[in-house]
């Protein structure tokens, strides 16, 4: 049974690393639901939240295959770990003067924010779990969605355990890569 699983992937912040990760998913036939990437508080380390539709048997293979990329420093399958999931949406809704109060009620109900008010439209921003975002979108859909963008899921485990070994930073220097022995040190610290 295929289900949606969430992986937190820490990678060395090198040019092309996103390409390597997404290429891996492509050639192994994994179906990406969403993939977000951004900097972390650690120098030269980026963090990805990857959501895949995959069965429980396939999940360890995703991890193992990711670790075959030298720039992948740490992988955590948080699908069965208590965690916080958030997504951000920005949606431009057709909102003439007549319907604007109704749209505003939807905004308030979902604790969304209005970013911009124009004569014929509102730009709304909301952050929350995917199902709340879905509900917001359904709430404003009847008024006419002019434009919309969603970030995809970002996630973090609950509790105080770090998802990535703190205190270990990539060495500074001119080396345009991580050597494998440095990587294995990092991998063993989780």
């Amino acid at each position, binding site marked *: 049974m295929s289900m949606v699983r969430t992986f937190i992937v820490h990678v060395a912040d090198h040019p092309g690393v996103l390409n390597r990760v997404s290429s891996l998913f492509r050639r192994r036939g994994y179906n990406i639901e969403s993939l977000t990437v951004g900097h972390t508080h650690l120098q030269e380390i980026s963090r990805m939240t990857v959501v895949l539709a995959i069965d429980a*048997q396939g999940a360890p293979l995703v991890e193992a295959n990711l670790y075959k990329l030298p720039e992948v420093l740490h992988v955590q399958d948080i699908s069965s770990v208590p965690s916080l999931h958030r997504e951000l949406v920005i949606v431009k809704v057709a909102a003439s003067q007549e319907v604007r109060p109704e749209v505003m009620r939807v905004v308030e109900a979902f604790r969304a924010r209005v970013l911009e008010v124009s004569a014929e439209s509102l730009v709304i921003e909301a952050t929350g779990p995917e199902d709340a975002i879905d509900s917001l979108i359904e709430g404003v859909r009847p008024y006419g969605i002019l434009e919309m963008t969603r970030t995809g899921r970002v996630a973090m485990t609950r509790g105080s355990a770090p998802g990535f070994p703190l205190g270990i930073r990539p060495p500074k220097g001119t080396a*345009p890569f991580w050597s494998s022995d440095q990587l294995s040190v990092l991998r063993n610290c989780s």
Partner: protein
Amino acid sequence: MKTGAQILWECLIGEGVKHVFGYPGGAILPAYDALCGYPEIHHVLVRHEQGATHMADGYARAGGGVGVAMATSGPGATNMVTGIATAMMDSSPIVCITGQVGSKFLGTDAFQETDITGITLPITKHNYLVKRSEDVAPTLRAAFHLARSGRPGPVLVDITKDAQQSSCEFDRSAYSPLPVTEGKYNFDRDQYAAAIEMINTAERPVILAGHGVLLSNAMEELREFAERASIPIAMTLLGIGGFAASHPLNLGMMGMHGEAWVNHAIQEADLLLAFGMRFDDRVTGTLKTYAPRAKKIHVEIDPAEINKNVRVDVALLGDLRQVLTRLIPDLERTDRQHWLHYIDELKGDSAVRDIQNLPDSGHLYAAHVIHDLWRETNGNSIIVTDVGQHQMWEAQYYKHEQPRSLITSGGLGTMGFALPAAIGAKFARPDAEVWVVAGDGGFQMTMSELATAAQEEIDLNIAIINNGYLGMVRQWQEFFYDRRYSATPLLSPDFAKLAEAFGLLGMTASSREQVGPAIREARKRRGTALINFMVEQEDSVFPMVPSGAALHQMIRRPSPLVETAASEA
């Protein structure tokens, strides 16, 4: 101060490289210019960059080190792709170095620019684009380390022309290779205890020995393991040589063209011990009916292979040699007479395809050639095969006693592999006898490397199994496409004359009595010799597990041959 090009060669020397197989061109010119200052490197000029990668591959497989191939940007780099993919599929450690246009021109579609790191991304363990001379040394150090560590494989280093030309500080004496640290046995008490329990209680166990045996140098440990617990060993194609063919516990090759008794033993086993193999579809047949009664223990260095094709009961992760060393003392000594006796009885069945000893009826069979080659060389030559029928016949009829004595493209099935890979093997082990066994089809894909063999004056022997067809495809057409021989009949040059054109010895043999003398003449001769064996045209490889069939459902050699054997005996 050293140029990036000088640093490149000094790093290669620091990694112990003695041979580089390559082809110069515009973007790699600075490196080739600097090469003149390093006479300790023997550069072998190939005739096509694919040949360079296969040579590096053959060099690595024969010698156990890392092979190095070099090419220029653009077409030079793209010509390497097939060889890189071949090395990737067969876990062969090679480092490919390509020149790249100057860093200022990257992304401008400059002359001979191609995104080779993008192209080779899925077929390398990793690749690097180096744009500064300062990065040359640390990158090469990492590249060699990555190529040989864990599950070995190809690494590509793309170096821009300006990175080769510009200078920086480099201390040659301070360079040392990174030690291999990955692949240590990741001991897990529960998994280990379960494995020992399964092995010691199994009644019908079979070991499946793969390429990992050779890659981790676990030959001795494998023998000790098998002898102590009296467990028969079935070989994958790439595992051949990891366990002596003459050993009574060696069953032979498994899979699509494996011996019938081997496949039957696997199907009837109650425990499979997969050692450094990956349950390729060519060895399992359909997975639905694969070894249905067997528990499975997988010893593997690459975690991504566990439960990929076949669900296993126990996985022991790490270097095979380390795992076996740990397991051996805990094995109970047993003789498993009943099981071994049962398999011996299955072997009686093999006469059906055992044609090498058929009396000479005027027809020369490929099996005759391989069998006689085995006899003449006492099973001690390095054989480098191409891909197709001859490859399977070689695996069936040449009994390999020594490790690293069969070099063949298994995973990718790359036609054209044999000749260049054999040239590489000869450079890795100059004192070994090296034979190319190739079909008339595959040989024509890379036969330009005959010029390389001639220019390097190496002592190589070449056996072409010439049946006038792309034989394996023809066989599939015969079995599964109603004998419609679409695009498989093949015209070839007179290979003996071709060899002569390169200044090499060329011979032709078309009957059984010509085989032995031709082989002896080739072995006697210094320099490269080629024998064109004109064999039965529409012979097929038996047994055969059709694609998608169960492993025990084999097509057997049709009975007329058996009858011929009986009437002529």
